[in-house]
């Protein structure tokens, strides 16, 4: 029963933001999804202030043991989310974590305030893989930029704040330390690695992108070893809990994440291969832990 930012969760397996739309999944799988809900908390996809249509297709490219996506954060926008999705998400049998992103401190502040008002939301995850309007670098790529943003917005919500770090940085542990110092209650990582999918097929022109959005982000087992390196580097340097993710496909992998210092483990891409992967991983981890006597930490 992991305790995470004041939430008492049934088990350590949650979903990665943007990799599970429970509302759509319920249409496909009905109440069985709810009855054997795979995650101990549900993380929404990233919500922005304004609605976004997302990137033009193709949005997916399969790589060796991985997936590149260039989805482009389609979402109904803050109001759409609160009005249309929140009632359905609030009915889930587990706590709801709402993931938000903004490109300026003001935008983020507005998102945090709106979320703060809603009792249905247990915690907020801030996705900082968003280019800073001034530097062009992702906000989360630079410890100083991130600290500045967090210092400006942290007080806008009293809910637990998870900062979802970007892996595309020189030393993610430095960024995590900055997040902790500026009031993050937890950090989550890794988000996808910046990646390029080349045009393929008979008409492919060299240098052209396959993805409608140009570049994309790599996830899945291909990046698990990178994720483990980043999670363990971060966990050694912060005292706040860490949500570890990246390529987790089994209970053994989840145990490796916990071993690297994570408190919770998120499953993303593997859910695409099996909608119930989260439940299987939870069970495998339980068996694994029963054998080794603990959740491996």
């Amino acid at each position, binding site marked *: 029963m992991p305790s995470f930012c004041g939430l008492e969760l049934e088990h350590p397996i949650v979903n990665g933001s943007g990799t599970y739309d429970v509302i759509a999944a319920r249409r*496909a799988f009905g109440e069985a999804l709810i009855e054997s809900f795979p995650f101990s908390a549900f993380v929404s996809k990233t919500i922005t202030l304004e609605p976004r249509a997302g990137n033009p297709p193709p949005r997916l490219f399969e790589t060796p043991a991985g*997936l590149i996506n260039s989805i482009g954060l389609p979402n109904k926008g803050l109001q759409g989310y609160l009005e249309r999705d929140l009632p359905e998400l609030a009915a889930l049998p587990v706590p709801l974590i709402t993931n938000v992103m903004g490109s300026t401190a003001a935008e983020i502040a507005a998102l945090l305030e709106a979320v703060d008002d809603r009792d249905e939301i247990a915690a907020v995850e801030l996705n900082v893989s968003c280019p800073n309007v001034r530097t062009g670098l992702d906000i989360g790529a630079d410890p100083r930029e991130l600290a500045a943003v967090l210092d400006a917005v942290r007080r806008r919500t009293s809910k637990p704040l998870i900062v979802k770090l970007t892996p595309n940085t020189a030393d993610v542990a430095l960024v995590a330390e900055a997040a902790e110092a500026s009031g993050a209650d937890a950090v989550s990582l890794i988000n996808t690695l910046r990646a390029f999918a080349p045009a393929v097929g008979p008409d492919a022109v060299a240098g052209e992108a396959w993805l409608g959005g140009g570049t994309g982000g790599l996830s899945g087992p291909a990046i698990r070893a990178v994720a483990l390196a980043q999670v363990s580097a971060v966990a050694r340097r912060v005292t706040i809990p860490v949500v570890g993710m990246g390529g987790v496909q089994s209970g053994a992998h989840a145990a490796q994440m916990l071993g690297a210092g994570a408190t919770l483990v998120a499953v993303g891409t593997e859910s695409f291969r099996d909608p119930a992967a989260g439940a299987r991983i939870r069970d495998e981890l339980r068996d694994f832990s029963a054998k080794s006597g603990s959740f491996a930490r």
Partner: protein
Amino acid sequence: MSAPFGRRRLTIGGARRVGAYVVLAAPDPGGPAPEPGQFYMLAAAERWGGGEDERPFLPRAFSVLRATGTDPPTLEFMLEDVGPGTRRLGELVPGDGLWVTGPLGQGFTAPGEGRRALLCGGGVGTAPLAIWQDALLASGREAPALLGFRDGEHAEGAGLLRDARVATDDGSTGHHGPVTDLLVAELDAGTPAIVYACGPPGMLEAVRALCEARAVPAQLALESGMACGFGACFGCVVPTRDGSYVRLCVDGPVLDAELLAGVPAH
């Protein structure tokens, strides 16, 4: 009826060649009967990976060709080798394991009052038309099918439907030319029709344009690259007439032609 939650492991019961295609059959004790036009996400249970460019990794989407029998129903899929995933699936033999998730998505809906159904397909687009033809015939309707193929070997796939009229690109069987030639003739003769179509993007777009020009309703079963098949990844979108996107796996794969300004090239 909803799909069972999660993927389930079936055992291949049969694998046969039909011209250039492979038809896989797998008894599905746990699953509900699919609706015509629905699809499943499939993956070989062993050695899914290590093919061309170290793929496949994700499951692949396949329209159900037919679901025969009960207790348990046997699912049939029709596939063509176009890459590492279809190649691996095409190598499966009876006794091999097959992961399936489904049935998924929205299928075809019955013709409105006074409309006759016209089925028009090409290549592996034959698959969903087979189960749909069965259903139409079972409900006492007529369901003539027009099918286009590359060549004679592929055209053997037409045998999966009843009384299909065939067109081939190389003229080796049936009409020499695009299947839409046959469709135009049908559309321009007889009572108001509704077209049910599945095939490569170029063909679907031609069907869509023909139907639009004639104000004939059409239901198009599209394809797009899918990672999950159940709405999770937002990867399978197609642009709609109103400038937004729909996820083909949950809002399709069968879409009303009206929804689209055009059928996207991939």
